């Protein structure tokens, strides 16, 4: 288990639905990813960007049209029997018969996992479903279903965990609890690859992330690195008797009425210039506010680029509930 060992690796990964030409659709168009052992890697993108299609290739559920996938050194599709016992997979939705109870579902799933040694009750308790064991799956809330999914993905104590939108449908409390659980797993050395719609989730959890658009990875890096690609913002209002024209030329300021916005990669420099000018000119800056770019801004900026339009409006998906 040497540090830096690559656990998930793809090169030139492509996945096409349907025939060549206009009749088909290429959902994954040349994806190169590399995830090290113990890393928590988040895959972001609007709906239709190719996250789940990519994930299914990594999970070995489907065969790529072109390119290669290696998980723990094996082809997860061809060498399924070697890879499966060491991975845990949580699909985007569903997957358990509606008419089975939580307990029956867990018993069935654990029965298919020869290596699963944790007691059933402990597995359910870990996700807060111990008192729901006699309830049928169809009667669980959306969040409870996700927690059952997660619990089942964990029964084999996986080295690599794939989570496809793990907290969709959960309330705030459930989401926090899930984040806590994922953090614990990561602390114990589990490699986690997750997709999410919640940028906050990626910001909170991920060591590194990739933003996908139209089947390609647009940017990869730590949340801080990705955020740093976007300018920070300084905002304030000028008093009525001060014209924006008086602002120092060095500041890339944009005025809209009395509201001024400065976008810059160098917040400290811009603020210094601004504040020194205000002191010298005896101008009071109203509602002064300076902040770094958020991951959401970086995400939206990428998602909004031309040619990225898929089937969903990009602007809403970052904050979709």
């Amino acid at each position: 288990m040497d540090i830096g060992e690559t656990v998930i690796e793809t090169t030139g990964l492509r996945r096409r639905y349907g025939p060549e030409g206009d009749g088909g659709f290429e959902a994954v168009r040349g994806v190169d990813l590399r995830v090290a052992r113990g890393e928590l890697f988040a895959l972001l993108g609007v709906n239709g960007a190719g996250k789940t299609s990519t994930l299914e290739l990594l999970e070995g559920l489907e065969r790529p049209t072109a390119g290669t996938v290696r998980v723990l050194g094996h082809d997860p599709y061809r060498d399924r029997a070697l890879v499966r016992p060491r991975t845990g997979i949580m699909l985007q939705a569903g997957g358990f018969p509606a008419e089975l109870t939580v307990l029956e579902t867990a018993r069935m799933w654990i029965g298919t996992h020869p290596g699963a040694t944790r007691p059933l009750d402990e597995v359910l308790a870990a996700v807060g479903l111990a008192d729901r064991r006699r309830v049928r799956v169809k009667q669980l809330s959306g969040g409870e279903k996700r927690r059952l999914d997660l619990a089942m993905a964990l029964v084999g104590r996986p080295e690599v965990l794939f989570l496809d939108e793990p907290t969709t449908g959960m309330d705030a409390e459930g989401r926090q609890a899930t984040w806590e659980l994922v953090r614990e797993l990561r602390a114990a050395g589990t490699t986690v690859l997750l997709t999410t719609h919640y940028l906050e989730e990626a910001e909170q959890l991920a060591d590194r992330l990739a933003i996908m658009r139209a089947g390609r990875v647009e940017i990869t890096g730590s949340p801080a690195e990705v955020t740093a690609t976007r300018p920070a913002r300084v905002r304030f209002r000028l008093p009525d008797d001060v014209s924006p024209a008086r602002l120092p030329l060095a500041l890339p300021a944009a005025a809209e009425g009395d509201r001024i916005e400065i976008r810059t990669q160098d917040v400290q420099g811009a603020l210094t210039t601004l504040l020194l000018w205000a002191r010298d000119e005896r101008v009071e800056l109203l509602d002064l506010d300076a902040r770094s770019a958020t991951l959401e801004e970086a995400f939206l900026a990428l998602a909004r680029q031309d040619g990225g339009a898929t089937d969903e409006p990009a602007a809403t998906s970052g904050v979709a509930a």
Partner: protein
Amino acid sequence: MTTTNDARTTATTGRGSGGGRAAATRIAALGRAELTLLLRNKTMLFTALLLPALVTFGMRGVVGQMGDGLGDVGLTVGTVLVPASVGFVLLFAVYSNLVGTYVVRREELVLKRLRTGSATDTEILVAAALPSVVISVVQCAVLLACGALVLDLEAPRRPDLLLLGLLLGTVTMAALAAFSAAFTSSAEAAQLTPMPLMLVSFAGSGLMIPLELFPDRIADICRLLPLTGPMELVRGGWTGSLGGADMLKALAVSVGWTALSVYAVRRWFRWDPRR
């Protein structure tokens, strides 16, 4: 050659992890869940447990009216009806029900989810069919015994042929169910897609009218249908009347259909509702 033996071979041929015992454990766990689901589904239970007996009972009058025609070709009401009951079990309890099972499990994403675990594709499909298959085997035994008592039949002359017919018929019907499921997009549609094969089998596989009463050329074509071979083996095994050449032919057609249907599943089965 027994049923248990074959089930074990099927289970271990998959590329599963952990060998035969682990495979058996996984199939048992999945099969148990599937049985629970079957017991909670009244429509499926009715189709599996009551329909074959009801139809067999209903056919009694019809076959009875064939009267002398049967005697002319060496058959009795019993030698027509009792094997036919096996055919009804295979069509209702195995084929028709399993089309629904495979479709519903796929649409619920259960099959996809199961493939994320350690079970192999073969294990998943076998386990889903297991409760229906066990029910149908037990039911065949009961129907054969009851039918024989009520209709004054002698004990089967060639039980080995009878069992072989039952086995090949069961595997073929289960595999054809999985194949039909590939062309069925919803639980509602699963009520319809089994119809063609069921109607063709009723009419052409000797379930309602013995092939002996058909013109020779039509009977020859009917002998190529998927359920006809197993039915001839079951009936021939009971009466001992199936000649060497006819037996080999029925056997060849049955094995051919079993192989073809298993191949069709490998080639066309869909695990994911998408597309």
